[in-house]
Each structure stands twice: as C-alpha cells, then as structure tokens.
C-alpha cells in the first residue's frame, strides 16, 4: 500500500514549467530518495505536497488525503524540512519548538515530553535554551528538523537536510532520518548528494528538468546501468 502517491503532477509558473507530469508512489516504511540536480523541480514538488503551492494539474494523496480537498489533514500528517531554514531568533530553541507544538495542537505534557525527546535524539541539549539568533548553521538545522517533526508526523519530507553541514552534523541528521522510519509512514529524502542517498534510500526517483527519468530500487538502477555507485547511475541517466 502506498503512503504517498504523486499523480501526474504539473506546475507551471509564469514563464516556465517547473514540474512536468511527475508520478511516483512511496510505500510504507520506505526511505525514498527524490534526486536531481539543482533546479530540477524537487523543491517545487515538495512544496506542492506540503500544500503551500497549488498544482497546475494533477494531485497528490497523502495517507489517502487529497492535497487540494483535504489540505489541513495533509498538513497535520506530514513534517517538512524546507531548504530555507529560518528560526525565530529572539526565541530560544525550546520556545521555537513550543510555538510550533502549540500550532499543531499538542497538549502541554505531550509537547514538553516531545521537546525533550527530540533534544536528546538530535543532540540539542547544550544549546536548546539559548537564543536561536546565536546558533551556528548546524544548530539551526537541528532546530529546524526538530520543529518539522514536533507533531510526530507519519510522513517526513526532508529537502536538502545536510546542505551546508559539517560531517558530524550530517551524521546526526542522517541517523535521525534512519530512526524516523516507522510503521504506517515513510521518509522522503530530497538531495543532490548521491553519496548520502545511496547510504539511506530504499528506492529513488531521479528528476531532471521537471520530469521523472528514473524510478527504481538503488540496486536495480545500478545493475541496469552497470554502475558501482549511485553517482555513476546519476551521471549516466543525465546524459540520456
């Protein structure tokens, strides 16, 4: 059964087609890679799934909820980490998380428990009570991740979560994604770093110029293109 189903999705902006008839399904318990070079249309697809952009044609179903007809239900069930991380700088990390927890309608006890849990998982204890304005990029990214999963969503979507992070911070983030896989849900990992995708993803789609050019298991793609690494697969597919 698919948790998330993208159906013939197209998004046109004033003068160009950012997404052109994209379809794919993500199954239960999968870590699914959404791969492609910069500007391929990954972020637009994610924004449409997250209901902040409306599709020109096609639709997406998340846990059976349609993004257009049931956008509120969709938003309740997904956690999205956007590429542009911004946190409220005059608030501490904890205050940032509290605000979003309240907006998701969490009760006080559940919220405080969840904040402590995420603080441990993402190794934020040392700085969570400091003003977010003083955070480093890595700290901000961890806070942004914690914020996006504060309501313990079934479907997680991470858009370039390791961009600009050092090796240590990247490891924490990747481990967190691995642990986030859970029954009844899925994780979508959008990246252009093939190395990370290869380590983590069960299945990937490769998007190029708004179109799907490959959609398969990592191993299957490797043997199809007789490559040893996903990076080579990627390079070969791009050339086609």
């Amino acid at each position: 059964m698919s948790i998330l189903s993208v159906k013939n999705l197209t998004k046109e902006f004033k003068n160009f087609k950012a997404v052109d008839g994209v379809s794919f399904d993500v199954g239960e318990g999968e870590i699914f890679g959404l791969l492609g070079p910069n500007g391929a249309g990954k972020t637009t697809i994610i924004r449409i799934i997250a209901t902040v952009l409306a599709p020109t044609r096609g639709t997406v179903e998340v846990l059976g909820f349609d993004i257009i007809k049931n956008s509120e239900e969709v938003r309740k069930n997904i956690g999205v980490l956007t590429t542009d991380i911004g946190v409220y700088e005059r608030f501490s990390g904890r205050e940032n998380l509290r605000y979003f927890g309240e907006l998701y309608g969490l009760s006080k006890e559940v919220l405080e428990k969840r904040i402590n849990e995420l603080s441990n998982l993402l190794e934020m204890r040392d700085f969570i009570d400091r003003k977010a304005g003083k955070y480093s990029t890595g700290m901000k990214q961890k806070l942004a991740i914690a914020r996006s999963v504060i309501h313990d969503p079934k479907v997680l979507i991470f858009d370039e979560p390791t961009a600009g992070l050092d090796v240590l911070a990247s490891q924490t983030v990747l481990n967190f994604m691995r642990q986030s896989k859970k029954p009844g849900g899925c994780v979508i990992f959008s990246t252009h770093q093939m190395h990370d995708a290869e380590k983590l993803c069960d299945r990937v789609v490769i998007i190029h110029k708004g179109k799907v050019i490959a959609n398969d298991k990592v191993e299957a793609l490797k043997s199809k293109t007789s490559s040893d690494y996903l990076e080579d697969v990627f390079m070969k597919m791009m050339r086609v």
Partner: protein
Amino acid sequence: MSKTILTIFKKELKDTIRDRRTLMAMVVMPMLLMPVMTIGMFKFMEYQVEKQGEKVVKISIIEKGEAPALIEMIKNQEKIEIVETDGEIKDAVTNGDLDLGIIIPENFQENIDDQEVANITIIQKSTDIDSGSALARISFLVANFNDQLLQERFADQEINPEILSKVIIIPEDVATEKETGGFLLGLIIPLFIVMWAITGGQYTAIDVSAGEKERKTLESLLLTPVKRMDIVFGKFLTVSAVALTSVIVAIGSFYVALIYSGGFGSMMQDGQSSGAEGIVESAAINFSIEPQAVLLLLAVSLFLVLMFSAIILSIAIFAKSFKEAQSYIGPSYLVVILPVVLVNSMPGFEPTLWFFAIPAVNATLLFKEVLMGVYDSGHILLTLSSLIVYSVIAIFIATKIYSKEGVLFRD
C-alpha cells in the same frame, strides 16, 4: 476566538516586545516625543516672548530741534537706554550697535506750540527683533504723548477732555473655561491619535509579515495545519495591540505633561492680551476631559487602530522584504496625514455629514467635537460604523493576500 489565534498573538507580542526597536516605537517615542515637542515648543515660545519683553533696547536721539517733553517721557520709560552715537545713525542701526534712532527735526517744538503737525523720523531695521520691540515701545509712548498733548490743548480752550473718549471694546467670552480648554486640546490631541495609530504599530506590522518572509520562517508557519485566516488574525491583533498602546502612551504622557507644566494656554492668552493691551482679563483654562469623552476617544481610537493596522499589515504582507515594506508604507502615511492636518487646522471648517465617513478624517473631526463637549449621535455612529467597515475590508484583503502563493514565494 480560536486558540491558534491566541497562540500566534501571544508569540508575536512576545517576539516584538523582545525587539528593542518595537519598544522604542511603542513606548519610548510617544512617551517622550509628544510632550517634549508640543509643550516644549510652547514653553520655548513663551520664554522667547518674555525675554523680549525684559530686554533693554538701545535708542539714540538726534536733536536737531528741541523736544523737552517728549525726550523726558522717553527717558522715564523703563527698559529703554538712551545712548550717544558718534557718526551716522543709520550705520549704527544697520550694524546692530543701536536698536533704534530718533531724529527730531529743527522746528519740532515750534510746530507743537503752534498746534501744527509735528514729525519725528525713526530709523529702524525691520528684520531685527530688538529693533522691532524698540519701535513698538516708542510707538506706544508717542501715542500716550499725543493723548496728553491733546488733553492739554483741550484744557487750554476749556473744552471737556471727555470728548476724546474713543470706543473701547469690552470682550465677554461665552465659551466656558472647559470649552476653551477643549478647543485647545482639539488642536493637538486628534492629530496625535491619528499619527500614533498609524506609526505606533508600523514597525511591528512589517516585522511580523515582510520580516517573517525575509527571515525565512514564514514557510514553516504555513506548513502547520493552522488556517491562513487565523495566522493573519493573530498578527493583526498584535499590530493593533502595539499601536493602541502607543496611542494611549502618547496621549497619556502628553496630558500628564500638560497638567504638570501649567499648559500652553497661558501663552495663547498672553498673545491675545498683548494685542488688546490688557483689556482682556486672562481667563483660566480648564483642561479636564469628561469621563464619557475619554471613553469615546478610546473607542474611536480602537477602531482607528484596527483599520490602520489591517491596512498596514496588508501592505507589509505584500512586500517581500523589510525595506520594500518600508518604502510602500512611507508614502501611505502622507496620504492619510495630509487631509487630517488640513481639516484639523482649517479655521471655521464646518464639516457636512459625509465627512464623517472618510477614514481618519472622521475620527479627527469627532475627537474635536467630543473634546469641546459636543456629542452628536449621528456623527458618532457614522464614524464608528464606517471605521468598522473599512477595518473589515482591510482584514479581508490581508487574508486574501496571505492565501496567494505568488506573494508568498516572490523571490
């Protein structure tokens, strides 16, 4: 009110209060600026006039002919110093060594004795304030001299000097002390309220909308299941709360300063009485405001604030950055304040009913009425209801803008 609106309101309020610039705009500026600017200005003018009155002016008299009585009178006048001048008297007045020069012609006394017209020439510099006050004092003195002279001449011819009596005006003001106070307050308070209703929340409005976009936190807010309407409402309430606080602080501090400083009324009265030469007895001015007037001022201010907050928030939401928002809002401030200043300062302006349907202008006119103790239910209802309608329209537009993806993701 939904719980999420309250959550957003509380968060934005906390956020904006932690920003020193908001505190400046909301509390410090209105608290200091208003009383200092207005009362300070009046006090300064008062001080200047007083100083001018105390000033001893230097006068030189060139006697080509004799004028013993007149010169005696000038010598006895207080705050006039008679000095000797060598050289050209005009040069001395020009370079400021002398405030005024008087030239008495050769046959001055003969002309007076013969009961003919006698001239004196006065050298003055109209661009010099001291020269001006010297001229005023000498003119006043010469007028007294003339009166005395005429009385003597009438006495010589055994005519009753009473026939010299001229018409004297005895003004009686039917305006009560309260009305006078209300009128003076009406010149300033409406303008302040409108001004702070716009500017008080401006910084916060930009910060919660364009600022949030610029700092890249907006998208994560839109990712939550919260309704767009609730987001706009929470932000709108924050801006309104900040603006209303600044209005109340501005008016409150102005009023307290007015009461403690003795007010600017004495100055205005002085201005009048010096013109009419002591005929007008300075009336006491009562600056107290009736409780129902305070309530009405607050109610109208509230709706004024709601309307402006909604308009400014709409504009700021549309902008993609702080700077862009500022450059949009700057001119809009002028559009509002110009007509308000106009109706506020136009003397004898009698508004027709539809003026009370023009936003901001209606509040200004109503504030003036209320401060003078006039309660016109038609004006009050029209003002309040039109402000409510404008507020609702502005909030509706702000919500629409927040739902447009193009505005949200303009890069």
